[in-house]
């Protein structure tokens, strides 16, 4: 019990240290406005990609429609905060987004999660496109023009805190009763059923939780960028999130963090290359996959506990 407390305290310390570090770098001017935007976008991508990793990496369900749930979060929060432009409004917006995305994920997930592999991918992609097309044609969402002048209620601090909270939720979920059941579905559905696991239920739990967290990423996007339109949430956005997950290593949360940073920084560096930027980006993507098909980190996970035990083992020797 004491040990657990210690590990948790170390994680908390790491989180606070990260915050202080960014704050300090911003104060002394190492991180300028452009750098801050890059960091915020990386943070939002981490939220989106870790939640997709929960669905793909841990539940083993190939979803290609994550941008749809992000869109629901973005529009919910944008609409709520345009009426209540306060921090409280943002929190309500977040909550509404989580509920809407979770509900839609439930409706989409119950029928489609029976499908396997690529069929599921294409069905979820279709579902996300349907969401986008509906947003594109509704009056309240202002159609293809989208929403603008959304109050800026998120800054890098908000994003940082939500990255920490969502990561905590996902990691703690994975290492609990429900999370282990979810992983058994990925490993072998028939074996899981044979020991009493209701595989459909756990697939849906993971899918809904992933969607709910993706909506948080969407809300942050809306209240930081301040303009959104349906084309921000198309197939390409789902693919961009997928790329982060696969590049980092499917099933590795640490890998998702690393990949989000690598791609975010790569994007920042490539800004100077103008039109050549996307050419270099795609080349980098192909080369990384060809030489490191299991992703940057494979399934490796950073763990304070292991770090400690390792040190202790060394100390004993």
């Amino acid at each position, binding site marked *: 019990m004491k040990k657990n407390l210690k590990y948790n305290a170390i994680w908390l310390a790491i989180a606070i240290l990260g915050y202080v570090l960014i704050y300090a770098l911003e104060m002394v001017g190492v991180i300028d406005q452009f750098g801050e935007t890059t960091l915020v976008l990386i943070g939002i991508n981490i939220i989106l990609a870790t939640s997709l990793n929960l669905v793909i990496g841990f539940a083993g369900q190939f979803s290609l429609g994550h941008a749809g749930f992000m869109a629901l979060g973005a529009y919910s929060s944008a609409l709520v905060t345009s009426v209540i432009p306060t921090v409280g409004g943002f929190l309500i917006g977040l909550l509404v987004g989580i509920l809407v995305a979770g509900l839609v994920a439930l409706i989409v997930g119950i029928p489609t999660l029976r499908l396997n592999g690529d069929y599921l991918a294409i069905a979820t992609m279709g579902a996300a496109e349907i969401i986008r097309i509906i947003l594109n044609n509704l009056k309240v969402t202002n159609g293809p023009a989208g929403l603008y002048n959304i109050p800026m209620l998120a800054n890098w601090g908000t994003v940082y805190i939500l990255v920490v909270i969502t990561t905590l*939720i996902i990691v703690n979920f994975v290492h*609990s009763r429900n999370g282990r059941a979810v992983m058994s579905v990925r490993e072998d559905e028939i074996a899981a*059923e044979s020991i009493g696991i209701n595989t459909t239920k756990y697939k849906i739990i993971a899918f809904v939780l992933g969607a709910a967290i993706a909506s948080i990423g969407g809300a942050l996007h809306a209240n930081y960028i301040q303009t959104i339109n349906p084309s921000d949430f198309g197939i390409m956005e789902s693919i961009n999130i997928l790329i982060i997950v696969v590049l980092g290593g499917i099933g590795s949360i640490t890998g998702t963090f690393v990949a989000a940073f690598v791609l975010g920084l790569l994007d920042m560096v490539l800004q100077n290359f103008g039109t050549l930027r996307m050419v270099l980006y795609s080349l980098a993507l192909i080369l990384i996959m060809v030489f490191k098909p299991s992703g940057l980190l494979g399934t490796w996970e950073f763990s304070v506990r292991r770090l400690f035990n390792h040190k202790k083992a060394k100390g004993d020797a």
Partner: protein
Amino acid sequence: MTLLDVKALTKNFGGLTAVSNVTMHLDNNELVALIGPNGAGKTTLFNLLTGVIIPSEGTVSLQTEHGLQVLNKQKPYKIAAAGMARTFQNIRLFKDLTVEENVLIAMTDKNKEGFVESIFRLPSFYRKEAALHQQVVELLSIFKMENQLETLARNLPYGAQRRLEIVRALATKPQILFLDEPAAGMNPEETADLTRLIQQIQSEFHITVLLIEHDMSLVMNLAERIYVLEYGKLIAEGTPKEIQSNQRVINAYLGGGD
């Protein structure tokens, strides 16, 4: 007392009848073997009993604490929850998870951890995890695997993988354990170990065991009763002695007779 009652169970695959009109029963705390030549439909029968395949006709009912429960057309996880656990001929472990996780997952139903307490790592979460951990260790120590908690299932030697699959099934606290060729691929020494282990499980956990096996020495040593399946039909039932001298069984195995 009859624990599992199977009546006129039949499965047709298109025009082929894989299991035909099988009526059998399993009593409390009994060790029964199911034998038969290759392709006789033994695994199909297992799959019917455990819900992996839905029977075309017939009923499977289990005596549970809530009385007699009809199990056919139930989802496999419900059948497992009712008290029937199994292993697989071609080992189906959760290969990329640890030994401990493999067993813990089988305890999901008994684990009362809530979503909120696990997300926020409340003290009650750690208490429940510690209690479960203790149970896993106890269970694994019966099989001398308590030192391999952190090993990935895929890295276990073959015999240990078979044992882990049995542990995983036992962790669901079943009334009946179905073992599909537990000795397949084992050497005589390992088979002898396994024989002792199965006896130990049956007496210690007070459960009923139904096993499919080709190793006749194991079957004749262990089984109290034997069912013989050929071409999807039961052709004999009896004690090992009776089966050994049954002309139809001998014909089935040697390919002679009618």
